[in-house]
């Protein structure tokens, strides 16, 4: 048993043993579970992939004369922002599209530029064109604004994601006889390919399946900066079915996270276009897991052989809200490049990048080892496995 305070003290003294998840697995291989447990203080985990519920808020500073963009209209490089806040506080979500984008009218739409790309441009330090219209008031008389803005001149620019870091995700296939274009990528007809989207053994919440160390207030690596878990994510579903090691077999927990956009790095924050679906933002997230006891150690040591996911048909079942599984596969099988579904061999592709995730785990380890990043005690638990908290569909009620 070790407290997080003790681990932080060791980090301060430069004596902490911080390992990436890959290094932990090799250590266990070399020295066995018992010895490895005694040696390691914290393990870094990570993921990199599209996270649609990403967004930013920013404050432009006031103009002279003043303008109240709030409840008016605003676009950044032609991409609409949300204006339902105060005078110069704006929100921009990753999936926002220019008004004149043809969307899926030319099917499948290419969705080459939208919110995710604007956010990436901001992070790259490029100038963006802000165009705003307001209705004018006695205290905010100005009605129009057209100006370039740059992230360095904004008062605040904050990434705020209301759901990401999914604990496990579906494997998507297409059982129909024509190609389909989904948020899980292009799916060829007749089980032509199977796409998945999780770092598996390296994925943060799969390494702390019971949310024992991660919670509200946890400091994380967020797209190159230090960020925080601000809440549980939308659609958080701790009650999802699990293995005997409490590892969910389908999408389960999620996180809401926040961090300073000005400190982020475009290597880990990339505008993303899903043909036929829309625009999103791919993000890199890293989570350090303090090895406070043996239970945490055993959870964090999970391998791809022990993590399973469900194969879901995105042609018929998923669009209709049916969660039928066509079969269960392990991440070890998914990573091998092919899986078997209905006695057919189906090649697999991943939407999330394991290469980038490993890079993040290594950077995070480095920061902790050098005393630039300290571990945190969570302030509050996330709704846990026995909380009864679930993810429910909408009950539609027609107006009378």
């Amino acid at each position, binding site marked *: 048993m070790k407290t997080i305070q003790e681990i932080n003290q060791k980090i301060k003294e430069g004596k902490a043993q911080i390992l990436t998840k890959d290094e932990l697995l090799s250590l266990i291989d070399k020295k066995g579970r018992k010895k490895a447990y005694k040696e390691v203080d914290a393990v870094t985990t990570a993921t990199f992939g599209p996270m649609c519920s990403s967004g930013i808020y920013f404050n432009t500073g006031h103009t002279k004369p003043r303008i109240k963009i709030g409840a008016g209209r605003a676009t950044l490089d032609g991409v609409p922002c949300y204006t339902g806040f105060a005078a110069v506080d704006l929100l921009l979500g990753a999936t926002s599209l220019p008004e004149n984008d043809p969307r899926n009218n030319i099917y499948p739409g290419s969705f080459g530029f939208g919110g995710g790309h604007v956010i990436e441009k901001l992070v790259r330090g490029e100038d963006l064109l802000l165009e705003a219209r307001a209705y004018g008031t006695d205290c905010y008389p100005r009605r129009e604004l057209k100006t370039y803005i740059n992230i360095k001149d904004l008062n605040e620019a904050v990434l705020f994601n209301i759901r990401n870091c999914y604990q496990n995700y579906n494997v998507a296939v297409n059982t129909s006889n024509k190609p389909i274009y989904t948020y899980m*990528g292009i799916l060829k007809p007749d089980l032509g390919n199977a796409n998945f989207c999780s770092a598996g053994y390296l994925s943060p919440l799969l390494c702390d399946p019971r949310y024992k160390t991660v919670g509200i207030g946890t400091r994380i690596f967020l797209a190159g900066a230090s960020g925080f878990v601000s809440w549980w994510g939308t659609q958080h579903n701790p009650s999802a079915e699990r293995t005997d090691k409490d590892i969910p077999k389908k999408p389960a927990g999620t996180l809401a996270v926040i961090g300073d956009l000005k400190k982020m790095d475009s290597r880990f924050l990339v505008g*993303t276009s899903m*043909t036929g679906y829309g625009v999103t933002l791919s993000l890199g997230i890293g989570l350090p897991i303090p090895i406070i006891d043996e239970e945490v150690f055993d959870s964090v040591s999970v391998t791809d052989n022990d993590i399973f996911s469900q194969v879901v048909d995105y042609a018929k079942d998923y669009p209709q809200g049916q969660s039928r599984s066509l079969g269960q596969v392990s991440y070890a099988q998914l990573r091998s490049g092919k899986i078997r579904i209905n006695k057919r061999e189906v090649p*697999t*592709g991943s939407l999330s*990048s394991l*290469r980038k995730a490993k890079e993040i785990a290594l950077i995070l380890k480095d920061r902790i080892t050098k005393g630039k990043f300290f571990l945190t005690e969570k302030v509050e638990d996330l709704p846990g496995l026995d909380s009864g908290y679930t993810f429910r569909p909408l009950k539609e009620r027609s107006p009378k």
Partner: protein
Amino acid sequence: MKKRVVLHFPTGLVDKPIVYRLVKDFDLEFNILKAEVNPKEEGVLVLEIKGDDQNYKKGLAYLKSSGVKTQSLSEDVAMDKNKCVDCTVCIPLCPTQALEQNPKTLEVNFIQEKCIACGICIKACPYAAMSISL
């Protein structure tokens, strides 16, 4: 010798019988891998050409002299290494295994010689890392 080339036909040349002379005058065999006429009436033809080296050179020179722009295939499809995040989602979509992951580095590599310029990876890559200059 077997080579793949992309032929660009400017407006006005599309309906002229040019390609058949590759067979007739230069004794070259060809397979059409892709044919397209865009709304501006410019044509693009992707051919796999088989035959003698000398004849191939002469045939291509003839095409050029007729106003057809030629380009070898490998120059047409490109991967931007700075944009590729090595996700692998393009790999099972490629019909010719021209995209593959290095199991050690996990980097995804593009093998130009195997590419037939089908264009699927360009639509499939979420990061605009694959491009084609047709």
